């Protein structure tokens, strides 16, 4: 009777043992799956760590861009200083050119005065020439008169001898006057010649002065062009600054994009860590399941006995 009962129990409990055996197998497969999952999760975590590192590196590169922009800004800022230097130099040069121009105008006015004075001088010279001609003419007339006096003295005979001497002296004086007048004429010719040369030189100098004045004006205009060009450099600098500012804004938005991305990455890391943590609690549960399942066969065996 007892044997029959045992056989009956054995028969009835075998499916329980079979189920336990199957459950143990499933448990083993599940554990292996968990090992693989954890390994994979660990790889994901590692790979993602690399992604984070790369992202940080890229962010670092972007931050270097920021430094580069600052450098460009700083260099382009030197434009302003150069522009200022140019402006100051041009102002100074313009001042000096202005002074040159003013002194040239003053010289020109002196030239005009000189020309007027020279004209007066020439006129005076002409008058002197006229006077000299009259003197020569008077000397000629005096000479004729002395000749006539000599002739008359010769006619007068002995009584006219003294007169003849006087007439000779007068002739000699008039000849001397003529000689002197000729010498004066020659000197006047020299003076005229010199005056002509001087006049010519004054004229050339005047022309040169006018040309200089024209150049001064041109130089003044050139300086204005330089100032304008320097102002243009300032505009370029301002444009560069504007572009840099715009680039900075863009860079900032790229950086904030990366910041947001970082937040997202951190979120993913948190999820990975949570998943990883859940995996670790699962291993404790597997242990509990295994601890409970492993007791069933002995219990069944004990029941059978």
């Amino acid at each position, binding site marked *: 009777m007892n044997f029959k009962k045992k056989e009956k129990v054995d028969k009835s409990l075998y499916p329980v043992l079979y189920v336990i055996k199957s459950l143990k197998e499933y448990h083993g497969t599940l554990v292996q799956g968990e090992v693989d999952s954890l390994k994979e999760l660990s790889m994901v975590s590692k790979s993602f760590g690399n992604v984070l590192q790369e992202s940080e590196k890229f962010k670092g590169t972007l931050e270097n861009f920021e430094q580069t922009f600052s450098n460009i800004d700083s260099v382009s800022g030197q434009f302003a200083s150069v522009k200022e230097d140019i402006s100051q130099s041009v102002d100074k040069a313009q001042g000096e050119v202005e002074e040159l121009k003013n002194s040239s105008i003053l010289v020109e006015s002196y030239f005009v005065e000189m020309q007027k004075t020279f004209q007066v001088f020439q006129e005076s010279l002409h008058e002197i020439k006229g006077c000299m001609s009259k003197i020569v003419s008077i000397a000629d007339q005096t000479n004729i008169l002395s000749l006539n006096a000599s002739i008359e003295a010769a006619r007068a005979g002995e009584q006219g001898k003294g007169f003849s001497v006087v007439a000779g002296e007068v002739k000699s004086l008039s000849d001397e006057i003529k000689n002197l007048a000729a010498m004066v004429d020659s000197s006047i010719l020299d003076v005229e010649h010199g005056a002509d040369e001087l006049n010519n030189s004054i004229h050339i100098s005047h022309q040169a002065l006018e040309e200089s004045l024209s150049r001064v004006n041109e130089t003044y205009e050139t300086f204005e062009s330089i100032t304008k060009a320097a102002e243009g450099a300032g505009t370029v600098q301002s444009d560069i600054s504007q572009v840099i500012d715009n680039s900075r804004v863009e860079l900032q938005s790229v950086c904030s994009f990366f910041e947001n991305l970082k937040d997202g990455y951190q979120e993913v890391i948190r999820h990975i860590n949570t998943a990883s943590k859940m995996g670790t609690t699962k291993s404790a549960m597997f242990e509990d399941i295994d601890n409970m399942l492993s*007791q069933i066969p002995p219990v069944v065996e*004990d029941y059978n006995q």
Partner: protein
Amino acid sequence: MRQFFGMSQSGNLNEAVSGLTNPQLILLMSNSSQFEAHVKRLEELYPRVPSIGCIGMSYDTKVVEKGVGVIAFCDGVTAAANVLEEVSVMPVKYIERLERDVRDINSSNTNTVCIDFCAGNDACVLTTVYSVLKQRGISLVGGTGDGGKVSANGRVYKDAVAYALVKNNSGRVKAYKENIYHPMGRYRFIASRTDKANYILGELNGVPAKKVYQDILHITEQEIQTQTFKNPFGKINGDDICIISIQEVCGNALKCFRQVNDSDVLILLELGNYRQIVKRTIQMIRSDFPKISAVFSVNCLFRYLLFSENHYMEEYLREMSALGNHAGLVGYGEHYNNRFVNQSMTCVVFE
């Protein structure tokens, strides 16, 4: 409630229980040669008083290494003691005893604790016992005794776990676990090729465990056994870390003091500033409990050896005693709820 601690360095039980009257639960910690006799004598002295016992060292402000120590809870507690047998194969066979005791003691999650002394197969035992306790949110604190024997209610059992349910009628109870180690580096391993029956850890991330341990710590094979004091493994369980000590080298694998399972996630630990950690634990207990009646703790044998070697054990016991009445057992493994851990301290604090 009131906690009594008596001891005899010479193993004289009468001396150890001197002054103990009207206990409501007795915990006996004896030596291997006198254990049976002490169990019998204790039952004669205090018949029908629930009791559990094991072979192991005990302490309050001093450690009793080879004698006998008795801890008793008196006044204001309701207690029940019993045993689950055949723990190496099927502790669940006796689960109704625990279910009945839990029901009878009418416990709640805030005022009751289960103290256990186990003779082996701790992880399986804890899974089984905690499957009942968790229904009522009862915490568990306990440890492994020596010699494969425990006692319950005056009887010695081999291959069993002795448990005592202690309900504090005048306040709360709370269990704590202290870990004096912290993660070393960012090493993280998935265990495989394990043999849970023999506590063998075969591979870590697919590489032989012995090689991994040696390569990281740059130690010889002979040094592995003692290195566990500084660098045990930690099993990650959610936010918690359960310490696993290395017992010895086994081929290319490592034999541990606790089972390791395939898919367990392990990390390498290193010894932290234990003086500070102990202070933090005490501070935490103080902030949780302005008034403390008693503290019962289980300290791992490894901690005892480590603290003693560093001349810290007596200071440690003094610091713990400053909390209130503190006594405990030096265990071969510590229990905290359903977790079986090594190189740790678990304790229960009674308000």
